[in-house]
């Protein structure tokens, strides 16, 4: 009896032991509370959240409302206040060092948008959206809208960077490993080529308006007209006036948007967000 018991016990322990020690899955435990990049781009809501993340940089106080504005320190319109901030003075006196916090924040912010856009551009086409949620309020494919938003935001970032700094590193693909980060600067001409290409695609892919009904259709997203206007701006900068004129005309004639008669009304209390929307290309309220 005792022997039999021992035998059973030992065998049980062996089997238990082996079953415990042989499961390699243990080393890939559930990633609780963590979302991987791969897992994000598997469905509609993940892709949408990633596209929303493109705009997220703009909420960053250091970046959008401070650093971008501080560029004006270089002009004669703005000057350092009573509390002298060295980083601002450096811009004012054109003594920009590499770790100036303003230029650092600009690089950081724009390249964050660029990286996020690159990830979206590479990964969204592989996501299979369910038919029910595949179209936006304009009746167009969400997949195209997402790509259009990414192309627009990437172009927008490079357009600001190239105007501020001239030649800049041109990342157009998702960075996978840290070894891929550092690349030489590309010539401004190449950067502009990329910007124009992106904005042309955005102009084709983006919907003209948003209904503000449901996720992904919020007003405030960039539209087809935003892309075309920005492209017109790019051509103006490049002194290609004919192309600029053509695009601007298209926006004026087809976009159903108009300028606010009184410029200061854009900022008046109570008007902002209502009347402003007539002019705003991204906040376009009239549909």
């Amino acid at each position: 009896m005792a022997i039999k018991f021992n035998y059973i016990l030992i065998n049980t322990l062996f089997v238990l032991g082996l079953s415990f020690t042989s499961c390699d899955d243990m080393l890939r435990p559930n990633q609780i509370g963590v979302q991987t990049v791969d897992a994000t781009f598997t469905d509609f809501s993940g892709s949408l959240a990633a596209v929303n993340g493109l705009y997220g940089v703009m909420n960053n106080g250091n970046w959008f409302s401070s650093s971008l504005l501080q560029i004006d320190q270089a002009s004669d319109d703005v000057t350092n206040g009573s509390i002298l901030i060295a980083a601002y003075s450096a811009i004012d006196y054109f003594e920009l060092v590499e770790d100036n916090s303003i230029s650092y924040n600009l690089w950081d912010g724009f390249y964050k948008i660029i990286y996020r856009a690159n990830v979206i551009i590479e990964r969204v086409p592989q996501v299979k959206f369910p038919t029910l949620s595949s179209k936006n309020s304009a009746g167009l494919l969400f997949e195209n809208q997402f790509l259009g938003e990414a192309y627009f935001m990437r172009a927008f970032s490079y357009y600001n960077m190239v105007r501020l700094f001239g030649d800049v590193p041109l990342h157009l693909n998702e960075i996978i490993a840290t070894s891929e980060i550092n690349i030489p600067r590309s010539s401004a001409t190449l950067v502009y080529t990329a910007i124009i290409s992106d904005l042309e695609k955005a102009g084709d892919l983006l919907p003209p308006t948003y209904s503000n009904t449901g996720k992904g259709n919020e007003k405030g997203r960039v539209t087809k007209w935003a892309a075309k206007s920005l492209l017109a701006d790019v051509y103006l900068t490049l002194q290609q006036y004919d192309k600029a004129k053509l695009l601007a005309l298209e926006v004026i004639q087809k976009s159903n948007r108009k300028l606010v008669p009184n410029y200061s009304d854009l900022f008046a209390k109570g008007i902002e967000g209502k009347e402003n929307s007539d002019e705003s290309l991204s906040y376009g309220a009239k549909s």
Partner: protein
Amino acid sequence: MIFLQIKRKSIGYTLFLIVLFFTSLISINAQPKKTEKVTIKVKDRPIENVFVEITRQTGVKFFYSNATLSKIKHVTFTFSNIALSDVLDQITKKTNLYFNRIDNTISVSLEKIVEERAIEPTPKTRTITGIITDESGVPVIGASIVVKGISNGTISDSNGYYSISNVAPSSVLTFSYIGLRSENVKIAAQNQVNVTLCELSIELSEIVAIGYGTMLKRDLTGSIAGINYKDIRLMPIVSVDQALQGKIPGVQIVQSNGAPGGAVQVHVRGINSTSGGGVNQPLYVVDGIPIVFNETEQNFGLGFEGISGGAASNGSSPLSTINPNDIESLEVLKDASASAIYGARAANGVILITTKTGKIGKTKINLDSYYGLQNIMKNIPLTNARERAQLVFEHRRNAGTRFAEGYEFLAANPYLLEEGTNWVNEVFRTAPTKNVALSANGGNDKFLFAVSADYQKQDGIVINTYSERLSTRVNLDVIASPKLKFGTRSSFSFQKTNQIDNDEFNQGSLLGLSVLSPLLPVYDSQGNFAGTPFIMYNGSGQNISVGSGLASEGFGNIVANILSKKRNANRYRINSSLFAEYKILAWLKFKSSFSTDYLFSDLFSFDPLWTRGAQTEPNMKVSQNSPKSINWLAEQLLTFSKKMKKHDLNAILGFSAQQFTDFYFGAQANGSTSNALDQFWNQTNYTNISGGQVNAALLSQYGRVNYIYNDKYLLTSTLRRDGSSRFGTNYKYGFFPSFSGGWRISQENFFKKIKFINNLKLRVSYGVTGSQNIDNFLYMATMSSANTVFGNTIVPGVAPSRFENEDIHWEQNKQFDVGFDLGFWNNRISITADYYAKRTDGLLATSPISVISGVGGSVIRNIGIVDNKGFEFAINTVIFEGKFRWTTEFNISTNQNKVVNLGSLPYINGASIGRINAYTNTGQWINRTEVGHPIGGFYVILQNEKQITSWEEAATMPLPGGMGGVSFLMPGDYGWVDQKTVDSDGDGNPDKGDGKIDDNDRVWVGSPFPDFFGGLTNTFSYKGFSLSTLLSFQYGNKLWNQPRLVSEFGEGNMWRSSFENRYDPTNPNVQTSVPIIRTNNPLPPSNRFLEDASYIRLRNITLAYEIPIKIIEKIKLDRLKVYVQANNLFTLTKYTGWDPEANSFGSNVITNGIDIGAYPQAKSIVFGLNIGF
């Protein structure tokens, strides 16, 4: 007489086997096997080898004395399946040795016993009885007693009792036991002989725990040092880590928080990593279960608000939850050869703890109890109210801001003031500490048990601080059959502590003692806690508060803060394992175990609302964090052990899987209008609610081979393969090999001539270990939150924030060790020395990357290299032996810590230290970690040697400030050294200062780590008395004295020594160490407050008396011992703060060597009692 079998066994035998062995000895089977046949082939070997072989084949044991065998030359025999009796006859023929068999034991002698036995016993012979005990009065079971010269022998029973008959007059009885020194007693008229057997001076037969097995100490090839239960029991200790202090070379114990239950950092051979938390702590393995070091609190960054230094400062050393009375032995695996069997967790050494198991024999019940009183080690006198008035008056005068606010009046009329409040006396107290531990231990050859319960309460020397621990343990062993054994090791402990803040800005910290004005009373006239402003009365009850200036006296009322805040930590630990062991073959054993370790904690803090004087705090606040760690371990282990002639081979092969799950839930709440309503449900507003779970796992395979040739050449090799869920795919499994060799030179024939050296062993080892204490999921490309706003609505967004890094892996530690063990005159003097060199590479550090990455400017990577090198030396001597016995143990160690590489990081600065003025030119940090210097080396500005004596001189001094800093210096200030950083003549060498004091003027001035440290233990014993002292010391480290900084800042109070040493502007040519007291006292991060923290400390002195057994037998006790012990009686140090061992930032190693008013250790006197019955 010795027992051959044990002497010859070497490696891989567990304590269990020893127990079994004695079991078989005591319960001698009266029925010898009928046909005992043996097969033996030896050629020119000692006769012992034949006996060993017979014992192995038949189970029959031999008794003999060394003297008997010393006369026998080497023998050559060939027996093939011959009956044992015939074999013995043949041996007798060849060697003239005679054998006498009683049951399963055969005694060996030079005379023919059969004939002697034939003679009728003469009436002169008697029967002698007695009890054999060890030094601590515990009965020695299974000791052998023989009459010298003849082979008449017996064995003591489970009570240590023996009876031996046929003892002729004037015979000499020899009493012996493994590991104890044999005693010879000449028989005169007495019929009773009680003997105390002392331990061998160095236990060559001592068995030490190594990972997954045990080994004879003499066969070790790695560096392992330990303490055993006797050391632990000698000292009434609250926590096990205290027992290690000053005892083990290469192991430094840093008590970063002297509060009861306070955190202890254990550094084995220096610090390997720049990371904080438990990363630099050794792995603790209790009865084979690697236990978690509060990982949940680390993973989630939990801790109390106001307590800096991370989770490890919260008093969470795994050792603090263990009842010291339960510990049988504790070993520290230091070098890679010893620790590599624990692979990816062994980089900082391994601490193996083995708890007591049941011993065969009568059930023994032990009661250990102590009671003690603790007090502050050092009193730092502060200024009294009269001096304070003088101080404030001067402060205003010197600053040129004299107000008509009464100080001038008070300074001129000091008799109006009394002493005022002595805050030191209000905050420190004499605190009791007590402990009761009860244990029962016993069993028979089928069932063994050791159970215990322990209650310990230690009040802190600071009011309202305490630690309380309740623990129980059940260790059971069931010997189901000669082949199968199973059992459990289970313990439960509950620890409850209350601490104080140590963050100076939370105002409960002891730093407040150097700030609080003596003019501020603790209580107002109504008996409530006083605040400011307050009405001040003189001795005659007259109101002498003059003007409004008094309203600014003092900061918070520290007594009120400490008494009314709560910083409770409740920790519950359940540690349990179930194992079964099966002997498949005589040389092959299989062990399977399943263990769990649960650690549940509740960290509760409460900040009351209050009104003190005109000050009010309208909001009360409660917060609670409840981390839980659960980890289970399944382990399968095969142990081989085979001895063939000169070859002795032992090996293990194991597999294990361990899973760690950490949970936590935490929240803060406020809104209650009464301090009585301090529960969560009483609150109206809930904030910071958070929680989560993290999983991690470790899959491991490991093996070890020990090979010993001819007892001279020792080889050990280990290999562990650890797979961790924390590692990237490219490094999912890590291999951790080690190799070591030993040469017992003293066993060589050529060496045997050197009689005075009885042991000389050379050891060398090399191996690789790792530290897997890294964050989970670092290898994955993950998204983080990036919400945005459309219109007026927040819309959730995410953004890729980290690149995939499948190269993330453990921090790797390569260690080389060479050492020797040397024993003189039968180990009267024994020496162990080691040199080691460790290199840790792949340090995880935040490394800067270009922001064009799109994920920000930094990424965590395996970069960085840190070196640790050092010598360890230990010498143990027996100066006197005999009735008066004096032994010493001395050890000293050096460790040199150096950062070799930080990847692309130029340096890492330590944490900011408060009250160092924040200038635009300098940071507020003191420590910097940079290549070529130790981790957290001190990098500060140098203060000028001489004080400024004139305004003209002051005007020439470079200043450390721009905005908000010091706008001018004045006589009585010190200036700072403007280092030559400007190259004015263009020769490439800086030759001139830049005219301002800034971070460029910092220089390296020392290290937070000592050049050397160690301890000296002296033990004297005479009859039942024993006296033991332990001195510990360290030399060469520096410590930042923030309490002195605050004192000399003159904010609210001053140390009297600072006050008396202050600069007197009316006597400008007298140099003083304390500069002029004025507004905006310039305090850049200079060497002014860095002090030498070398010390020698009398850590404890213990006097014990063991009541003689004759007396206590009458009151039916086995054992009664009383002792008195004094701890931390005196300290020689130049450090002017409370405690040179302070280390406020605890496990944050890049900010080591900072005292921001750390809770000092106490001195104490303790009375104790051990009773056995």
